[in-house]
Every structure is written in C-alpha cells, then in structure tokens.
C-alpha cells in the first residue's frame, strides 16, 4: 500500500524556486494493483517515480510506503563502471539484506542477464544492451511487493525483450507494478489502473483505458 498525501514538488533552479512540477497529488495505490503513468514529456512522470521510490523527497506533503518497494528500474543509474557486473550485483544483494542467499541471487542474475563471461568484466566495457540486461536481471532477482519501472521493457534485443516481458508478466501477476511507458500496448498488457499527469495534477482512473483516452485527447492525437 502506497499513500501519496498532498504531494507538491518543485526544483530549485539558479534563479530560485522553479515552477511547480507536481501540485497537490493525492492517491492511494492498493496492494497488487498495477498502475500505468501517462502524460506528455516533462509532465513529471519520472519525478513522481523518483518520489515514490524514495530517491527524492517532496517539497510539501508526504508519501507512505507500507511495503517492500523496488528502486526505479530502467533508470540508467545504479551501476559503477569500474566494477564488474558480479560486484555490482553483490552490492545490490547486500543493501537489500540478501547476505545469506547471495549465491542464489547471483546465479539467478547471471543466468537471466545471459551476458556470459562479461558478467565478470567491468561494466564500463558493456554495450548499452548488456547494461540494460544486467539492470533488468538485478531488479528481477528480488521479491518486492511493488516494482517501479521507468520505460524498462524497451531494453535489449528481441530475444531478451521477450524473455523480459514474460518475467515482467509473472511479476505483475503476484506483485504491484507502477510503470511509465509511452507504448499503449505495454500499458494495456500490464496495467489495470492508470494515472494521467497533466499540468502538474494527477488524475486517477480505475481503468487504464480511461487514462489513455484522456491523455490522447489532451495531446490532440
């Protein structure tokens, strides 16, 4: 259960406080509900994911998280170039408290990422596809109650995309999912409910179709 209570967000710019990116957001995400976030570029989708994910804090209001929540996946960050894939994976296991079953997790990540001997090479030698494979594998290796995904399914080649979609579907069935995607197909496939971000406000829809309809109307498509 995630409660977003009167959340406001604006960033400081070099000219003082910027405009409000998000204004007075109120909604509650019940357990095991899959939510898609829609809105035009710059509407604050990634900002909202960062706030829910606890990386950034709201300027006003607060967010309660009564569950185990993943980090925003597909974010691009979270990997250190000079360390190997395995060392990066170990780090993530440790901060999530998986010291005892670390070997199982590592085997799973190595197997899922499928990057062979590159798993023991520094991440800076990876191609961008290999990076996303590793990142995706790391986020699938832990049992979260809610997964946060920022355009994550777009990663990798066709074989991996299919594998990732299957794993994602499995996750979506037994856990909650909060996702940003510009692909309607992806949103329909994984989400029931939707949030439409428009002009700094958030509108909750129990059916993702309604959110998509409003979004498309607003951009005149």
């Amino acid at each position, binding site marked *: 259960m995630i409660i977003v209570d009167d959340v406001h967000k604006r960033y400081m710019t070099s000219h003082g406080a910027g405009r409000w990116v998000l204004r007075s957001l109120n909604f509650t995400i019940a357990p095991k509900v899959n939510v898609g976030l829609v809105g035009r570029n710059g509407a604050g989708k990634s900002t909202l994911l960062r706030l829910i994910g606890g*990386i*950034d804090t709201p300027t006003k209001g607060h967010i309660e998280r009564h569950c*185990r929540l993943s980090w925003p996946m597909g974010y691009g*960050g*979270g990997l250190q170039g000079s360390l190997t894939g395995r060392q990066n994976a170990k*780090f993530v296991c*440790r901060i999530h*408290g998986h010291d005892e079953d670390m070997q199982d997790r590592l085997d799973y990540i190595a197997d899922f990422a499928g990057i062979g001997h590159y798993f023991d090479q*520094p991440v800076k030698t990876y191609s961008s596809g290999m990076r996303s494979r590793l990142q995706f594998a790391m986020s699938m290796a832990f049992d979260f109650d809610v997964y946060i995904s920022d355009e994550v399914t777009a990663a990798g080649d066709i074989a991996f995309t299919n594998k990732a979609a299957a794993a994602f579907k499995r996750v979506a069935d037994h856990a909650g999912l909060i996702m940003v995607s510009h692909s309607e197909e992806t949103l329909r496939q994984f989400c029931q409910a939707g949030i439409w971000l428009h002009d700094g406000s958030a509108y909750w829809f129990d059916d993702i179709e309604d959110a998509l309809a409003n979004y498309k109307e607003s951009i005149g498509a």
Partner: protein
Amino acid sequence: MTRPIRSSVQITLASWKALFLREAVTRLAAGRAAWAWLLVEPLGYLIFIMTLFGFVYHKKVGGVDGAMFVVTGLLGFYFARNTFLRSMEAIHANGALFTYRQVKPIDTVLVRAALEGFLTLLSAILILAGASLFHYDVLPDDPLLVMATVFGLWLCGLGLGLILSAATKLVAELGKVVNILIIPLYFVSGVMIPASTIPQPYRDYLLFNPFLHGLEVLRGAYFSPFHAVPEASLGYVYGFALVAVFLGLSLHLRFSRQLVAE
C-alpha cells in the same frame, strides 16, 4: 516468500557493509596494482622530505631521530588529510548509487572515512615495520596517548570530510580551493618542523590549526625526549573534531535533498 520489513538500523548497517566492501574493492583491486600505491605514496613523500631536509636536520630534531620525526609527522598528518580528502569526494563518486534509496549521501562519507582510516593504519604499520628492519626505534613510549591522538586526528578528518562533502556538492568551486590549500597545510601543520621552532607571534596564529596540536601531542607521546610546546593540547584536537562532526552532520541533515540531486 514474504520477508519482514527491515528496521532503519538494519538497512543502514547493511548499506554500510555493502559500501565498505565496494569501496575497498575499488580502492585496492581496480586499476593496475592499486594496492601498491598505499605504500608508494607515503614512501615517496618520505624519501623526498628526508633528502630535502637531511642536510638541515643533522640526525636529530628536538631530541628525536630526524627520520622518525618526519615519519610520525607524515603518518599522523595522513590520518587527518587522507580521511577528509577522500571522504570529501564520496558523494560525487557515488552519485549513481543514490538510485537505491537505502544509500544516503552521509553513508558514503562515513564509510569512506572509515576505510581511509583503516588503510592509513595499515600503511602506517607496514612503514613502521619496515623502518624497524633498518634498526630504527619504532615503538612509541606512550602507546595509549599515541592511539588517542591518532584517533583524534582521524576524527578531525571525518568532521572536515562531512563538512566539505556537503559544501563541495552545494558549491562545486570549493573543491578547487581545498586542493590549493592542501599544500600550505603541510607546512603549517608541523609535518616537518616542531612547533617550538616557529617564532612568536606566528606560533599562536598557527596553533589555531588542530593538526599542529595533534602532531605535537603525537610526537610528545611517541618520543619521551621530545618537548611539545606547552600550548599543544589533545583537548583542542577533540574539541575541533566534535564541532566539525556536528557541523558536518547538520549540513547533511539540512541539505539532504540537495545532496541527492544529480
């Protein structure tokens, strides 16, 4: 399988452990023989200073063997300097990790300071052990006071690291200023000279520097023939350290949001 939600303390301890191991690996294993630099750097400075001052010191400084005088000064100074220089960069270097909300900027600074203290201790032990092979008298006369002083110097480094890590993140230019100031800091901290050789009134001014206090007390404890200036006080070192740590922690608390920002 549902796992219980961990307490804040458990999460913090887990991320300290993970960060410590990660930092240690980067520091010791990444790059070509990265571990060798732990010894090469202090040894290089030692050789440089000893050749430079070898002619001046004529074997004895303040009743102490010249080489051991420089060794203790340099190693004591390193406990403070390495700690704050490395931890100052911690937030910048670990920016990618704040994707995981378990990792806070303060964690990276604390872990780096701890690792740096540990590594400096390691290189100090190795250098002193090496010196004993050349028949230098490396055993301190008052080991407890030496330990207390070294810890105080490290604590000063931690405090400055906490302040500077937050300050350089907020005002990036400060990092450059610190790097300029680090060279004069060598000279005014008494790494190469005893405080008693500094004429008044300048000695009083320089004694605002906690490192000078620390190194004087350290040498007084290490070598009983060495007479530290009467103003030198371990209390000043710890006082400075506590104020700096407090100020650093409050900066991290006050600007916690800005420190995470890209």
